[in-house]
């Protein structure tokens, strides 16, 4: 029955009005600002694509892009793989399922800044527990903030810790919807557990995996709180910018350098990056095929 009244439109209008004001308009306005030399006070001068040209040829900005992608990979791939395995483990029968699930979800409930602070302390060079722990095995203290790789690992571990449980629960739900007959048939044919996992469970989970990869991509490419708190609340991402993300660059550009046009241009480039990587992810994950 087609409802001819205007009421459906009225029902959806609150969302769209808000979206127009706080969603679409800022997006367009960002583009507009990025084409100018823009400070809050004073004249705004049209400079066309100069900001973009500067960013694309600027070594520091390129480094932040590399950092962002690097941290994204380290924060997403291990996390989702772990989540799959944890979900698989949770998919067994044992007592106290709800409690275990809650336990696995606890990281998600913690404040993001709180986690960043605690982990940053644990990764302290001289006084951090990780180095103390490694020291017991004869490993020299690692300066976690010094190199790109070490800082990426430390920061990504914060993200992994927070979200693995959440994604595991999502995978678990989807796993429970897989028809058991598939597993039965596979067992009859002599397939091992591992084979069944990779060739039945994972392909059946494809839509959910695509979804979680997508959500993690957005979160991973916009990392801000963790890398910022990792360096005591500073935006420079380490002494050479080794863990400065694009989001931090954007905020530094307009907050510390008073260069709103540059910040806006960087924001649009971040958007482009997200689109590209999300598409790439989709293409990769889509290749998970059901086999046999």
């Amino acid at each position, binding site marked *: 029955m087609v409802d001819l009244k205007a009421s459906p439109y009225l029902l959806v209008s609150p969302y769209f009005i808000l979206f127009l004001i706080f969603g679409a308009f800022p997006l367009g306005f960002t583009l507009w600002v990025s084409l100018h030399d823009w400070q809050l006070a004073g004249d705004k001068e049209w400079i066309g694509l100069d900001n973009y040209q500067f960013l694309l040829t600027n070594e520091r900005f390129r480094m932040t892009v590399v950092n962002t992608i690097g941290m994204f990979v380290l924060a997403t791939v291990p996390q989702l793989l772990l989540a799959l395995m944890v979900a698989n483990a949770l998919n067994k029968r044992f007592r106290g399922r709800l409690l275990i699930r809650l336990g696995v979800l606890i990281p998600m409930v913690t404040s993001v800044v709180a986690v960043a602070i605690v982990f940053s302390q644990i990764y302290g060079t001289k006084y951090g527990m990780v180095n103390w722990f490694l020291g017991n095995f004869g490993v020299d203290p690692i300066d976690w903030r*010094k190199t790109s790789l070490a800082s990426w690992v430390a920061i990504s571990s914060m993200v992994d810790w927070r979200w693995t449980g959440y994604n595991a629960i999502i995978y678990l739900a989807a796993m429970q919807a897989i028809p058991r007959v598939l597993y039965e048939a596979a067992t009859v044919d002599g397939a091992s557990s591992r084979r069944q996992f990779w060739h039945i469970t994972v392909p059946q989970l494809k839509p959910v995996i695509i979804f979680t990869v997508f959500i993690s991509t957005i979160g991973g490419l916009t990392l801000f709180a963790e890398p910022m708190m990792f360096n005591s609340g500073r935006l420079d991402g380490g002494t050479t910018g080794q863990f400065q993300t694009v989001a931090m660059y954007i905020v530094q550009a307009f907050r510390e350098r008073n260069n709103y046009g540059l910040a806006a241009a960087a924001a649009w480039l971040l958007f482009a990056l997200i689109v590209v990587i999300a598409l790439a992810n989709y293409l990769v994950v889509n290749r998970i095929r059901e086999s046999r």
Partner: protein
Amino acid sequence: MISKAARRTKLRWLVGVAAIALLAPACGGDDDSSSGSSSDEPVTLTVNVFGGDGFGYDNLVKQYEQQHPNITVDYNVVTDDYDNEFRPQLIQQLDAGSGAGDVVAIEEQGVGQMMSMDDAWVDLSDYGLDSRESDYPAWKWDLGHTNDGKLAGLGTDVGGMAMCYRTDLFKQAGLPTNRDQVAAMWQDWDGFTQTAQKFVDSGVDAAFIDSPNQIYNIRLVQEAGNGDGTSYFDRENNYILADSPAVKTAFDYVLQLNDMGAIGKFQNWTDEWNVAMEAGGFATMGCPAWMAGVIESTSGKQNAGNWDMAPVPGVSGNWGGSWLAVPAQSDHPEEAAALADFLTEPSSQLAAYKAISVFPSSPEAQQNPAVADSKNAYFNDAPVGQIISDSITSFQPVYYGELHSAVRAAVEDVLYGVVEGTYSDDEAWDAFVSAGQEVVDTSG
């Protein structure tokens, strides 16, 4: 159509408002500026400062509130990191036209930038405060003016410079702990280098200096002051870092000390630096007057007697020192100006000194025996007043351009990278120059 009842209510309101308006001037306030303002209505003034210990205004604020019953002062120490947090935030607030508070603190190395924002500030001479000129040395007074010549800031403290050192670590290293002997050890920079070498050779498990930043700045300011008074920018605001001999000398000195292994891997104001200050992670650190307070509160009672103070090599130096200014966006510029005046008077500077060891910028206060002869009990009764005064007397002011703070933050990151080992000595200078260049290029 207004009903009779509504009309009556309206009338009552009109009468009430008229009454208040007529009576207000009659309730003349006790403030000495021009009359006409409703000086009895309650006013809250927000004072925003920075620093590990703030500006020492707690008691002064209470005193002011008692003297002015209608005024409440909300005194905030916003953050201890001026360069990376307080300054950018204040700029945002000034740009936004709101949120900045009624009285704000401006630090010396950001003063160039602040004073270039002429429209952001109230001209304090509108409230008669240009009479304060006699309270300050010329350079301190001048720096408080905007590019347009407005009087925007009244000086509060100066940093001066001393070198604080850990007597317990010096003892372990076999170095003298008596401050006169220590001062004799490092009268000049060569002496300092030799002391560093001795400390490193002794094998004590601590760094000789906390970080590269302070030693670099001490050297830089001395060299620049003895030279033409410029560092990163010349007086036309051109970026001259690459060609500045003062910068190069200071830079090379840091590399020299680092090659010796004398510099600690701590960055100022980070968690680990704080922790190391308490736990004895380094043996010396640059000590402007206000740093003494920071050391005391961070190191805690358990370290009383472990810290002492001596003049820096070359004696002269100054880090920091601030002004109080009134943003133009304040709703109560007159009251704010009066408060700023009060907080910066020589007697208030004296009180602040007694509270948290921030050194007065007014010669009148500096000469007060309470300051000149003062000793700091935490630092083994070191004659702080004397040491700091000496450092300021020989101090030659340096010109800081508009972008000085931002460039400073970026290039000091590189210095730290050198200490960390990220940059080799050969790469370091180029990285240093381009880090500063990056700031100039990306700044709006």
